[in-house]
C-alpha cells in the first residue's frame, strides 16, 4: 500500500544513533490484540495521555463481532495538524496477538517499527527486513509488576489484562508520551473502588517504561511533544453524544432493541435520563422501554409520538428494515418520531462491527409508495449531540419521522470535541390544538393545510372537546381524516406531504460550504468522512489540486448544494458505500447538465475512510483531466473511465 500523503517519511532506525530524521506529532499506532483481553483500557490510556499532552488525537477500535477470543485492532493517531481521520500507514505496530502478527507486519511501510511479544513462537524478524523489531518480554514484565498472589484463582486472567498496560509504558516511552499523563489516564480508567487495579496497572506501565528506557534508542523516529491544542476539549464517542442529545432534546419516551452499534446509545441515554430526569420524589419524566424487536420499538415510539410524547428510538440497518412499514405509516398518518440509525456494514448481518454509510438513501425514502423523509447527518460528535436534540424538535414541528444517520465510526469511537453548546432554541411542540383553541376556532380538520405550509394542526388524546377526536389511519383519507379513495383526495394529500417536506427543507441544518478561490474541483461528503476530507483537501492542495468543499448535513439536500455544483467543473461525491448513493440522489435532482459534473468516490471495505482513500482516486481522475483533455466524451467525463466512479481498495 503506497502512501501519497504521509507527512512523515519512514526512516530506518539504527541502534547507534544514525541518520534517520524524526517525525514529531505525526504519530499513528496500530495495536493488534485479542478481543476480551482488556486491551481497550490500555488503548484508552494511550489516547487520554496524548490528549493530556494537548495533541489532537483520535482512537479507533476495529473489532470483530465477538465477545472474547478473536483478533481486534486499535488505531491511535496524534496529529499536530489536527488530522483525526483513519490512517492506513501506521508507522508503529504493537503485536500482542500472534495469529495476526505476521500479516500485520506485512502491511507496514518500510521503516516502520514493530513491538511484539518475545514469547511468540515465530520470530517476526523473518517476515521483513525493512522494519525495525523490538521483541519485548511483556509476560515477564507484567509478572514482575504484578506477582502472583497465593490463592487468587483469577490471577492468570488478571495478568492477561495487565500485560496490555506494559505495552502502554513501552510505547509511551519510545514515542515520548509523558508517563505522568499515562499515570493520570490509568487512574481515570480505574477510578474510585478500582484504585487498587489502578496501582497494579501503573506498575505495569512503569515496568514497560523502564524496559523501554534501556532498550529503545533515544533516536526513536516517531515521537510526540506537548502542544496546547486540546486544553478545553472533551473526548467522547458519538453514541454518548447522541445520548446527551436525547437528554437535552427533551425526549420523554425512548424505545430500543439491542443491536450493534447502536445499543450503547440507548444505554447511555437511559443512564443520563435516570440521573438527570428523575425528580426528588423518585418519579421519572421519561420512560425507557427495551422492546421485543425493532418493530415493537418503533411501534411504541409511534404510539407515544401520536399521544404527544417526544419519542425516539435508536437502531442500525437491519433494525431500520424492520421499522420500514411503521415509518411509512408515520409518514402518511403524520406522526412525530425520531429514529437514530448508527449505520453498520451490510447487507444482511454483514459486518456488524464495521462502519458504513450504506443506509443513507434508504432512510431518505424508507417506506412503501411515495415516501421522503428528513435525514440529519452529523459529521462530528458535537453534531451527534445537537442534531439528535434538533431531530426531536423537527419531528414535532413537521409531524413526521426524522432520522439521524450516524455510523459506527462516529458512534463507537472516541473523538475530540469542543464542549457541547447548550441548545439555543426552546423546545418545539409543533402545531397542537388544545380544548380552548378548539372552542375558539369552532372547527378542526386534522389534515387541512390551514397555513399553506403543508403542516396541519393536530390534537392529542385526552383533549376535552367534542371536536378534538379524529381517527388516525394509514388508509387514504380526506382532510377530516375520513376514509377516502377519491383520486383527488389522495393526490391532494400526497402533494401536501411533498409541500411539507419543502417547508422543512429550509429549516434543516444547512450544508457547510468552503469555497476556494479558483478551485475547479469540488468535494461533497457527509457524516464521518469529514475528518478525512479535511486531511485529503490539504494533501490534494499540496499535489496541486485546489478544492472547494460542501458537507451535506441533511436530506433533502438544500438548494446551496446545487449552487456548489454549479460553481465547480468537477465535483467528487465521497461516500462510504458501494454504489454512491448520495451521488445518485443528487444526480437525479440536479437540473440541466449539472449532474454530469458529479463523480462518485466510494469506500466500502468496512474500515473507516482514510484521506488516502479519497486522495488516490481523485488524483487518478485528475490525471485524466490534465493529461487527456482531448479524450473526454463530451460530458466532461474521461472516455476511458466509467461514469459510475471509482472506489478505493
Amino acid at each position, binding site marked *: 500500500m503506497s502512501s501519497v500523503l504521509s507527512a512523515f517519511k519512514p526512516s530506518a532506525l539504527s541502534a547507534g544513533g544514525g541518520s534517520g530524521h524524526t517525525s514529531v506529532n505525526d504519530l499513528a499506532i496500530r495495536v493488534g490484540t485479542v478481543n476480551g483481553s482488556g486491551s481497550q483500557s490500555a488503548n484508552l490510556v494511550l489516547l487520554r495521555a496524548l490528549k493530556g499532552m494537548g495533541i489532537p488525537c483520535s482512537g479507533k477500535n476495529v473489532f470483530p463481532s465477538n465477545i472474547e477470543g478473536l483478533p481486534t485492532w486499535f488505531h491511535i493517531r496524534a496529529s499536530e495538524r489536527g488530522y483525526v481521520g483513519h490512517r492506513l500507514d501506521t508507522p508503529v505496530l504493537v503485536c500482542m496477538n500472534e495469529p495476526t502478527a505476521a500479516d500485520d507486519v506485512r502491511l507496514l511501510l518500510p521503516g516502520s517499527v514493530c513491538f511484539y511479544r518475545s514469547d511468540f513462537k515465530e520470530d517476526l524478524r523473518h517476515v521483513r527486513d525493512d522494519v525495525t523489531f523490538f521483541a519485548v518480554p511483556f509476560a515477564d514484565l507484567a509478572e514482575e509488576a504484578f506477582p502472583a498472589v497465593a490463592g487468587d484463582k483469577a490471577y492468570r486472567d488478571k495478568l492477561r489484562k495487565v500485560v496490555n498496560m506494559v505495552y502502554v509504558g513501552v510505547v509511551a516511552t519510545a514515542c515520548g508520551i509523558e508517563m505522568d499523563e499515562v499515570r493520570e489516564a490509568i487512574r481515570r480508567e480505574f477510578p474510585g473502588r478500582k484504585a487498587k487495579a489502578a496501582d497494579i496497572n501503573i506498575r505495569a506501565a512503569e515496568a514497560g517504561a523502564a524496559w523501554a528506557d534501556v532498550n529503545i534508542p533515544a533516536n526513536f523516529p516517531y515521537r510526540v511533544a506537548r502542544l496546547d491544542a486540546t486544553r478545553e476539549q472533551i473526548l467522547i464517542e458519538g453514541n454518548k453524544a447522541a445520548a446527551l442529545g436525547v437528554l*437535552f432534546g427533551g425526549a420523554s419516551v425512548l424505545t430500543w432493541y439491542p443491536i450493534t452499534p447502536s445499543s450503547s446509545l440507548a444505554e447511555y441515554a437511559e443512564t443520563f435520563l435516570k440521573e438527570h430526569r428523575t425528580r426528588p420524589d423518585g418519579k421519572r*419524566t421519561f420512560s425507557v422501554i427495551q422492546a421485543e424487536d425493532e418493530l415493537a420499538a418503533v411501534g411504541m415510539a409511534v404510539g407515544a409520538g401520536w399521544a404527544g410524547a417526544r419519542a425516539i428510538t435508536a437502531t442500525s440497518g437491519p433494525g431500520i428494515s424492520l421499522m420500514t412499514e411503521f415509518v411509512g405509516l408515520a409518514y402518511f398518518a403524520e406522526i412525530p418520531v425520531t429514529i437514530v440509525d448508527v449505520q453498520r456494514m451490510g447487507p444482511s448481518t454483514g459486518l456488524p462491527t464495521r462502519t458504513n454509510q450504506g443506509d443513507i438513501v434508504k432512510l431518505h425514502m424508507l417506506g412503501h409508495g411515495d415516501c421522503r423523509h428528513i435525514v440529519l447527518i452529523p459529521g462530528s460528535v458535537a453534531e451527534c449531540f445537537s442534531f439528535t436534540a434538533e431531530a426531536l424538535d423537527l419531528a414535532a414541528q413537521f409531524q413526521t419521522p426524522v432520522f439521524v444517520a450516524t455510523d459506527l465510526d462516529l458512534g463507537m469511537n472516541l473523538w475530540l470535541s469542543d464542549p457541547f453548546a447548550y441548545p439555543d432554541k426552546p423546545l418545539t411542540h409543533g402545531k397542537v390544538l388544545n380544548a380552548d383553541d378548539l372552542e375558539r376556532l369552532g372547527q378542526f380538520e386534522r389534515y387541512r393545510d390551514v397555513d399553506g405550509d403543508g403542516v396541519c394542526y393536530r390534537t392529542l388524546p385526552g*383533549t376535552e372537546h367534542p371536536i378534538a377526536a379524529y381517527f388516525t389511519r394509514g388508509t387514504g383519507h380526506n382532510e377530516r381524516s375520513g376514509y377516502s379513495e377519491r383520486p383527488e383526495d389522495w393526490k391532494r394529500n400526497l402533494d401536501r406531504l411533498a409541500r411539507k417536506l419543502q417547508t422543512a427543507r429550509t429549516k434543516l441544518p444547512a450544508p457547510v460550504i468552503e469555497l476556494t478561490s479558483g478551485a475547479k474541483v469540488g468535494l461533497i461528503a457527509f457524516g464521518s468522512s469529514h475528518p478525512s476530507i479535511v486531511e485529503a483537501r490539504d494533501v490534494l492542495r499540496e499535489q496541486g489540486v485546489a478544492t472547494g468543499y460542501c458537507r451535506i448535513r441533511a436530506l433533502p439536500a438544500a438548494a446551496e448544494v446545487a449552487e456548489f455544483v454549479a460553481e465547480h467543473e468537477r465535483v467528487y461525491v465521497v461516500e462510504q458505500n458501494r454504489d454512491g448513493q448520495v451521488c445518485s440522489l443528487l444526480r437525479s435532482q440536479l437540473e440541466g447538465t449539472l449532474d454530469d459534473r458529479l463523480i462518485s468516490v466510494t469506500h466500502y471495505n468496512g474500515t473507516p475512510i482514510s484521506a488516502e482513500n479519497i486522495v488516490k482516486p481523485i488524483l487518478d481522475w485528475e490525471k485524466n483531466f490534465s493529461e487527456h483533455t482531448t479524450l473526454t466524451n463530451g460530458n466532461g467525463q474521461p472516455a476511458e473511465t466509467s461514469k459510475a466512479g471509482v472506489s478505493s481498495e
Partner: protein
Amino acid sequence: MSRDDTQVLVESPGSTTALPLLAFQGLQSTLCKGCGHNSITSALIDACKSVGLDPYYTIKMSGIGCSSKTPAYFLQYSHGFNTLHGRMPSVATGALVANQRLTCIGISGDGDTANIGMGQFKHACRRNVQVVYLIEDNGCYGLTKGQFSATADLHSHLRRETGEENTMPPFDLCLEAIAAGATYVARSFAGDRKQLLPLLKAALRHKGTAVLDIISPCVTFNDFASSTKSWEWAKNHEEPLQEIGFVRRLPEIEVEQQAGKTTRVQLHDGEWITLRALSHEEHDVTNKAGAMRFLVESQERGEFLTGLMYIDTKRPDFVDMQGMCETPLALLEESDLRPGPEVLQDIMAHV
C-alpha cells in the same frame, strides 16, 4: 340517526361530566350485514356507557382487518388509531406510556393477533399493558376473502362445507394470553350479549391486560353449518361457565346471602365481579395453572366454553412499573424535559 338528548355521566380524571349519547356512538358500520363484529360493537358501546367511561380519555386502537375497522363505529369523541397489521399492541403501549390517564380499547382479529401479531400480543400480555384487548375471532381472514387464520379449528373447511380442510391445530388465544401473563382472560360469543356485557364492563375496569377472545361469526366466509365459528354452531354449542355480574358496590347483605354460591373478585377500584357457576363448578378463576389445564382439557374435549377463564388483580400494570411522574409525559413542559445549562456544563467537565 334519531336525535337523543340523553346525557351520560362519565368519570374524567378529577371530575364527573355529562356527555350526550352520541359521544359513545360512531359511524355507520361498513361491515357485512349480520357480522358478529357489529354485535360486539353494540355491546361495547353499552358497556362504556354503563361504566361511565370518559371518551375524551379513551383511545381506540386496532390493527388491520375487518375487526380493526370497528373503532370507527363507536366512541366518536375518542381518538382512534388504525395501526399496522398485528402491531397494535406496541402502538398502544407507547400511547399509554405517553399518557397514563388514557384508557385503551384495543380491537383485533384472529389473523391480526394469532398469526401476524402473536409476538406483540404475547409481549403486551407479558408486560401487563393496560389494554382491553378484544379479539373478534371468526377463524378466517374476512377482508382478504376467507383464508384460514391460526384459530381455525383442525379439520375445519375453507369458505364452504366442501372447502379445503385445515390440517393445522388452532391456537387457543385464552391459553396463550394466560401463559404470556395477561391478568384478565375471558372467552365469549358475539351472540351472547348477556354474558359479553358484564365481561366487557369488568374488563374496562381491570388494571392490566384484559383479553377477550370473542367468537364472532363471519357471515360471508365462515358461517356454514359445520363451521365451529358459525352462528348456528356457536349458539348450539356454547357452554357458559358462569353467570357473570359486574357491580360497582356489593351491598353487605347481598354478600352474606350469596356466600357459598357465588365467587366474587374485587377489582382495583373497588368494583366486583360476581360469578355463579353454571357448569364446571370446580373452575377457580384465580388459579393460573388450573385455568391453563382447564383450557387444554376443554379443547381436547372439543367444548366451546365461554366465561371468565382467569383473573389476577394483584400484578401491577406496565405503566405503573415505569415509575413516571403524575403529569402525563405528553404534557410535560420544557422545564421538566430539558435539564439546565449547568447540568450540561457539569457533564462536559466529566466525560
